[in-house]
């Protein structure tokens, strides 16, 4: 059989299969008990946790649990090694995910598209379910095989198992197909140029909005004026939603083909900017108001494009709030109900349009901390005898922009040329409070090691709270060649004594 080459074909006892299903899936065995004689299907994730870079591969196995050979069409099953029909039911947080995969119109099947399975045998294939169902958010997903009704002979294929998979992180939104008609023939040439101009601006302001959110230092986000104006009081979860939204909006505007239809098939079109269907990315219907407003600024053409893209389920699935159709309404919503504001399409638009201008913090707005460095280090004697006292000198400087509190400096002995706080401490002393740009001369004396040999010596300053850079708090190293104690005089004396006794 041709299919042998492609699929792992394994003979299994029915009882073994049932047992495996019971172990693998919560109620797989229970569901299987309801199956008619025919093909049992099991779904097995190939990983327990999928991260953002993993293809969402699952293994789907079809087992003949009847006493007779069963032949069936591989179309619309996993045995095509890709999902070409909606044969799975995938849900997350109580929501069924829509099927966004291929729908294939085909010629009548040929004989080669059928597969035959002997009793107790199974065939399996792995497929990427992320290609056909919008699984972008981290969390748990439940997969049920609902199947397509196809058969030859009397065999019926029915759901037999439930599997769960866990996405450990959000995944980049991936779309299966690009929309080709960019601007529909319903748009006039003037409208085309208005759309193109607005698209270019939208791409620009979406990127700026994305960068503004991503670059704002975490500690300054709670007071980020531009964020709190449109999304209300800061919460890490909502801020992260805003980041996800603009990552996706910006990515869509840069990488996807946006479809425009100027027919505006809607009642009362005179008050309408635009409308979309959330499940139809990235097509939008643009209406008279859209063409009347400015290309940029508040409630502009470019902002409307951002508003509409935020609606798509593959982006963030935002909503319209009749109470927030202008800036003052959106501000009120942000103040009174931040969890609604983070779903408000106009909030995304106004954040991106940023008119009037509101600031977002950057690293430049962080308080300038102190930064202690060792600007010089020297030893009086590089070849001391064991346990000999050696004078050391260092200059400690605060090169930061605010004063540093008093801290400790310690002389460190290292077996290698890199000095760190992990090296042996020989002595320590106090560095006083240092203003920005101030220096301190640190002098001390240390005892050389008791074992002769080659060492390195240096000084480290203990970091202070809020210090900008702490990797520059130790000096470079100075080699220290520790020699044995001078014992030649007693030896000569002993030698002389020996000669005398003779």
């Amino acid at each position: 059989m041709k299919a042998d080459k492609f699929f792992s074909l394994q003979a299994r006892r029915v009882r073994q299969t049932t047992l495996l299903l019971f172990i693998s899936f919560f109620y797989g065995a229970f569901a299987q008990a309801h199956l008619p004689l025919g093909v049992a299907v099991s779904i097995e994730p190939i990983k327990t946790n999928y991260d953002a870079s993993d293809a969402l591969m699952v293994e789907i196995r079809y087992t003949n649990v009847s006493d007779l050979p069963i032949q069936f069409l591989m179309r619309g099953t996993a045995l095509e090694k890709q999902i070409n029909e909606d044969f799975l039911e995938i849900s997350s947080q109580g929501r069924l995910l829509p099927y966004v995969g291929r729908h294939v119109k085909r010629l009548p099947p040929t004989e080669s598209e059928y597969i035959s399975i002997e009793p107790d045998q199974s065939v399996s294939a792995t497929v990427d379910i992320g290609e056909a169902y919008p699984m972008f958010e981290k969390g748990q997903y439940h997969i049920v095989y609902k199947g397509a009704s196809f058969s030859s002979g009397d065999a019926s294929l029915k759901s037999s198992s439930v599997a769960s998979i866990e996405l450990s992180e959000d995944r980049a939104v991936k779309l299966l197909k690009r929309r080709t008609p960019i601007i529909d023939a319903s748009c006039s040439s003037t409208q085309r140029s208005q759309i193109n101009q607005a698209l270019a601006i939208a791409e620009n302001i979406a990127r700026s909005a994305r960068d503004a959110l991503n670059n704002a230092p975490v500690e300054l986000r709670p007071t980020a004026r531009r964020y709190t104006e449109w999304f209300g009081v800061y919460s890490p979860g909502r801020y992260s939603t805003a980041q996800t939204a603009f990552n996706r909006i910006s990515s869509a505007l840069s990488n996807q083909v946006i479809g425009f239809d100027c027919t505006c098939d809607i009642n009362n079109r005179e008050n309408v900017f635009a409308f979309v269907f959330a499940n139809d990315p990235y097509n939008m219907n643009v209406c008279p108001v859209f063409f009347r407003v400015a290309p940029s600024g508040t409630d502009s053409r470019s902002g409307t494009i951002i508003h509409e893209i935020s609606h798509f389920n593959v982006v963030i699935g935002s909503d319209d709030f009749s109470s927030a159709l202008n800036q003052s309404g959106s501000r009120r919503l942000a103040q009174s109900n931040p969890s609604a504001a983070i779903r408000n399409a106009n909030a995304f638009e106004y954040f991106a349009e940023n008119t009037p201008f509101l600031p977002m913090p950057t690293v430049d707005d962080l308080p300038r901390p102190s930064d202690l460095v060792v600007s010089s280090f020297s030893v009086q004697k590089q070849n001391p005898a064991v346990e000999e006292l050696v004078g050391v000198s260092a200059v400690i400087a605060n090169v930061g922009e605010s004063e540093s509190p008093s801290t400790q400096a310690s002389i460190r002995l290292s077996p290698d040329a890199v000095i760190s706080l992990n090296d042996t401490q020989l002595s320590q002393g106090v560095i006083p409070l240092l203003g920005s740009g101030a220096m301190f001369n640190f002098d001390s004396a240390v005892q050389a090691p008791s074992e002769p040999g080659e060492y390195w010596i240096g000084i480290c300053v203990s970091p202070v709270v809020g210090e900008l850079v702490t990797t520059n708090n130790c000096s470079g190293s100075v080699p220290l060649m520790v020699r044995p104690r001078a014992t030649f005089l007693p030896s000569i004396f002993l030698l002389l004594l020996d000669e005398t006794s003779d």
Partner: protein
Amino acid sequence: MEVDSSMLIEGRVVLNSTIHNRGLGTLVFLPWGSPFESSVTAPFLKVKVRKVNGLYDVPYEGMLVKRRAPQAEDFLELEAGSSYKRSLDITKSYTFCPGQTYILEYQGPLYSLDFTELLVSGEIVEFSTHEAFPPCGQTE
């Protein structure tokens, strides 16, 4: 709020909604995105389908509309004690498959002139779809 059973036989889900003003003064409300508009322009309903292992949300697939801010003439007025009735075909705004049981719940919002949210008690409507509905999950 009720679903027109005669329309279900034809494969359509038509919602008959009535708003009563039980207050003493005139009620002013914005019909945009509510059952009292001439077409579905917002997800004012929560729709669920009953499956073997529980209820599942049926996502809204209708249009989402960006409009200019409403002006006084966009609002409707309802005298004290009177009511306003509207029929709205919601068939295309959600996927309704044949032989399924659906539950509709009004989730609003409905706004007054000053954008305070009007309290609307919407009952829950349950209905089953007939074979006249187009099969779901079919090839194109």
